[in-house]
């Protein structure tokens, strides 16, 4: 239990090779990306290729009455496809099959796809869009969580609920009865666009054999593969999905590519020619998935010293018009809703509501940012009400080894909530800054009353806020068992180890990390290890590139493959392998004498993990990663603008296989969290996204980004390869709560809705000034 696998696996007979794990080797895809040689889907051309465009609904809900094709338009060379052209099921197969690939009669959300056009000339395809007139009779739509809950208009069953979970532990009533103080708050957060820099795009071809090949930007080749089987009624072997270099995903290329691939493939199926659909930014923001907005009510009971005795959370998320990923997003949000805190009496209710808006989907954090933001905002409020330092309140309640989560999961190992809090607070100078900013703000206020202002005449206030978060790595509960992932390692003809996995590089460094883990086990340098392109004809289904699972779960399978491969080759050579040249020598001899070598490993659930899907009790995740964030802000009282001065964060991710990439994940995720908390707001008009331009949906620039001070804490998880847990999503979960707390510290305004736009903050500040 206390030994790392590293030591166990290293044969005594060989010299210690250079370690590959824990070293920031050059990123595998770095060179092709800095030279412009990397080919993304929009960089590819095929002979005879058409360009596809999508006719979309302008209204949020309605009935299609007529589709007219302008007779004055030159329809020569235009391919048109609608739902009647779909050979199989008219659905985008996710967990459920309720979302049509193309609308038939009912329109359930604005920008829903109705029909497709394609032409060899993209300008003609665009023009054809304008020559299609769809007459839709508008019906009363449900556009917000509140409207959906009120259920005056019913769009799903009797209550508009897409999915509900209830988690309970202990005796809630007794817990509240036992509390000295009960604090309640309601916390809201809006949509967030993933805003990968490369828009969604696909190219589909119909093969001579009656199959389909799809290439494009995606996180989950086998999700697309599965969806196409349903849409086209084809057997798996007739469908081939190939990932092209993917310019960011963040969840935005988890489920949506299945829909887009279906569209491109349908046009290719009908025309017999390759069809490319690459969205422009306007269409990508308007039509693709977003982070679920949420309204989270948190009520907690505490002893005077802050000890948490009861937690009651009611989280409601906006699922959009179709089920798509909402049940799993909701589930993960609910499972993390209590925060990384010990509490004997808990009730968590979570509902996803239907609205007539484009389906919300996966986005880094996957439901956790919403509930953790709510809980952390709430903890800051509790600290204020109890007169406790927010750090002290959190330390008092943060989980330690042996604590039990709301689902009854005992946290056996690798629990670092207290450690990340302490490291963050120490590094940020928490106590000193908390005092200093408070003092300076009071002094500034006095000076301004006396007519003395800071240089430039600005009225600025500073504050520091803290938040703690946790993130379960891998699929929830029995999810990994259902995925049944299979990864493989084989030998290339030149005698090099080759990774065969469906998990994709989307910038995060997946393939680099794979080569490191395999190299470490084989005792070779990562450079020697090849990585096969994720292509469903060539790689097994190792599951989707989501859920912070790639390193921990798939990396774990590959690590086992590498161990097995080494054993086979050493048995064959009758001695230990010794470095790159020796490996290749032995491997080539093996290939010549024994033929191909391929090692596969399938996911095996560790026996001690028990999960009950019915009662929602048990081990929700094999383990959790923990992170704490301290955010320092400066608020301008005249404009409500908030500038982030500095962020300090300590995150326990088990083991940093590649420290530089891990820090890259943490820095990038943190900035997305800051953007969500302060800048990014999807604005709606008549049920459609109004600000679907990058000019108006604003994400942080280099000037908005603060210095990020990142500390990696390594508290290994025995079930992860080399001790690794997940790192991809945790950084997104935590910052928002810290921003809210920092703004409260700076200005006294406690914001219960994010983003904290200047408009919202100024309104809150004015309210306070009036009350005074």
């Amino acid at each position, binding site marked *: 239990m206390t030994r790392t696998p590293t030591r166990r696996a290293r044969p005594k007979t060989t010299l210690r090779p250079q370690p590959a794990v824990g070293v920031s080797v050059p990123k595998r895809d770095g060179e092709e990306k800095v030279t412009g040689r990397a080919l993304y889907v929009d960089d590819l051309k095929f002979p005879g290729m058409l360009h596809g465009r999508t006719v979309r609904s302008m209204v949020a809900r309605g009935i299609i009455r007529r589709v007219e094709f302008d007779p004055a338009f030159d329809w020569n060379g235009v391919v048109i496809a609608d739902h009647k052209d779909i050979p199989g099921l008219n659905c985008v197969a996710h967990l459920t099959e309720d979302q049509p690939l193309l609308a038939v009669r009912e329109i359930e959300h604005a920008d829903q796809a109705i029909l497709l056009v394609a032409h060899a000339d993209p300008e003609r395809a665009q023009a054809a869009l304008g020559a299609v007139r769809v007459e839709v009779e508008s019906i009363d739509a449900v556009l917000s969580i509140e409207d959906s809950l009120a259920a005056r208009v019913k769009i799903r069953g009797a209550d508009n609920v897409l999915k509900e979970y209830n988690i309970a532990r202990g005796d809630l009533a007794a817990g509240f009865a036992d509390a000295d103080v009960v604090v309640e708050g309601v916390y809201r957060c809006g949509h967030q666009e993933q805003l990968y820099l490369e828009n969604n795009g696909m190219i589909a071809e119909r093969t001579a054999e009656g199959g389909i090949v799809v290439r494009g930007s995606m996180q989950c080749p086998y999700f697309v593969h599965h969806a196409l089987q349903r849409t086209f009624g084809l057997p798996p072997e007739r469908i081939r999905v190939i990932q092209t270099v993917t310019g960011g995903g963040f969840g935005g290329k988890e489920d949506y590519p299945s829909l887009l691939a279906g569209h491109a493939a349908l046009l290719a199926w009908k025309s017999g020619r390759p069809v490319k659909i690459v969205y422009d930014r306007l269409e990508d923001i308007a039509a693709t998935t977003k982070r679920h907005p949420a309204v989270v009510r948190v009520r907690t009971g505490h002893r005077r010293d802050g000890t948490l005795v009861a937690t009651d959370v009611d989280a409601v998320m906006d699922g959009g018009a179709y089920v798509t990923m909402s049940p799993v997003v909701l589930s993960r949000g609910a499972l993390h809703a209590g925060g990384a805190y010990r509490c004997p009496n808990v009730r968590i209710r979570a509902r996803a509501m239907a609205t007539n808006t484009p389906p919300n989907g996966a986005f880094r954090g996957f439901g956790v940012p919403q509930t953790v933001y709510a809980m952390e905002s709430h903890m800051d409020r509790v600290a204020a009400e109890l007169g406790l330092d927010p750090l002290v309140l959190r330390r008092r309640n943060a989980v330690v080894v042996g604590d039990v989560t709301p689902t009854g999961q005992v946290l056996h190992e690798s629990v670092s909530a207290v450690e990340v809090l302490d490291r963050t607070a120490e590094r940020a100078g928490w106590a000193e800054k908390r005092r200093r900013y408070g003092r300076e703000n009071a002094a500034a206020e006095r000076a301004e009353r006396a007519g003395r202002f800071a240089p430039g005449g600005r009225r600025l206030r500073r504050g520091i806020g803290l938040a703690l978060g946790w993130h379960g790595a891998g699929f929830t509960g029995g999810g990994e068992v259902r995925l049944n992932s299979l990864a493989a390692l084989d030998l290339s003809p030149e005698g090099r180890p080759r990774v065969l996995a469906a998990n994709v590089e989307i910038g995060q*460094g997946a393939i680099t990390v794979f080569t490191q883990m395999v190299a470490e086990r084989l005792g070779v340098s990562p450079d020697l290890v090849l990585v096969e392109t994720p292509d469903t004809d060539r790689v097994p289904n190792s599951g989707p590139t989501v859920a912070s699972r790639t390193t921990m779960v798939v990396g774990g399978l590959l690590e086992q493959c590498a161990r097995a491969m080494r054993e086979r080759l050493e048995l064959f050579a009758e001695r230990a392998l010794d470095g790159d040249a020796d490996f290749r020598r032995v491997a080539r001899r093996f290939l010549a004498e024994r033929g191909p070598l391929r090692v596969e490993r399938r996911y095996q659930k560790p026996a001690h993990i028990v999960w009950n899907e019915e009662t929602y009790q048990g081990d929700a995740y094999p383990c959790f990663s923990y992170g704490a964030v301290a955010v320092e802000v400066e608020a301008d009282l005249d404009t409500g603008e908030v500038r982030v001065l500095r962020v300090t964060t300590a995150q326990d991710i088990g083991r940093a296989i590649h420290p530089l990439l891990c820090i890259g994940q943490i820095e990038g995720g943190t900035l997305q969290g800051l953007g969500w908390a302060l800048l990014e707001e999807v604005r709606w008009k008549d049920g459609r996204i109004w600000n679907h331009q990058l000019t108006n949906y604003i994400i942080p620039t280099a000037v908005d980004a603060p210095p990020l001070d990142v500390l990696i804490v390594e508290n290994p998880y025995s079930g992860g390869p080399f001790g690794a847990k997940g790192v991809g999503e945790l950084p997104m979960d935590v910052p928002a709560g810290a921003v809210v707390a920092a703004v409260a510290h700076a200005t006294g305004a406690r914001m219960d809705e994010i983003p904290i736009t200047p408009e919202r903050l100024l309104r809150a500040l004015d309210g306070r000034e009036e009350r005074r």
Partner: protein
Amino acid sequence: MSAVLTLDFTVNGKRRRVRVPPMKRLLDVLREDCGLTGTKEGCGEGECGACTVLMDGVPVNSCLVPAVQAAGVKIVTVEGLAKGPALSVLQRAFVERGGTQCGSCTPGILVTAHALLQRAKGRVPGDAEVRVALAGNLCRCTGYQMIVNAVRAAARETLASGPGRAARTARPVAREQGKSARAKSKPVKTKAKARTTATVRAQAKPARAKAGVARRRPGPGR
């Protein structure tokens, strides 16, 4: 007035002649007519900077430039940054220091950063200066810090290897960074087992990043 323009211009040092519609975007001329797909479209409205190229030495959004205005100009794209097969100092710094993740913004960022370094010749631009220069290049992956670090590291390295300077400030990059890494990793002297921590922000060389990690013994704690 004509619907097709014969456009003569220089791209990455090579004279080019293409026949294109006069209002075709320079971005599309480069990607479609010159076969240089390194330059990316991220928004089509001059906001994200993924399509940044140098036009007579200054960075512009090629999605906002009509072909007609490129007549006679010198264009540099990401494909023109390296002289020969080896990466430029700036490109290498991006690879080594985490400046590129998904890579979509990378070509535009490299071009803008290249222009900045050209202007700052003989000087290492400050952190704030780099950020302002890059404000027109959106990145959604990195949080920008590693990009800024890479740009400044490239400036330092270029400065160090410049004529006449090499002797005086031999390899200041390694020295400076090495020092900071040492200083910051002091607690790590007691090594992994001591469950100690240190910053990982300043990585001199890839291998050094290891110093920044607080490691703990495996197995159950507390």
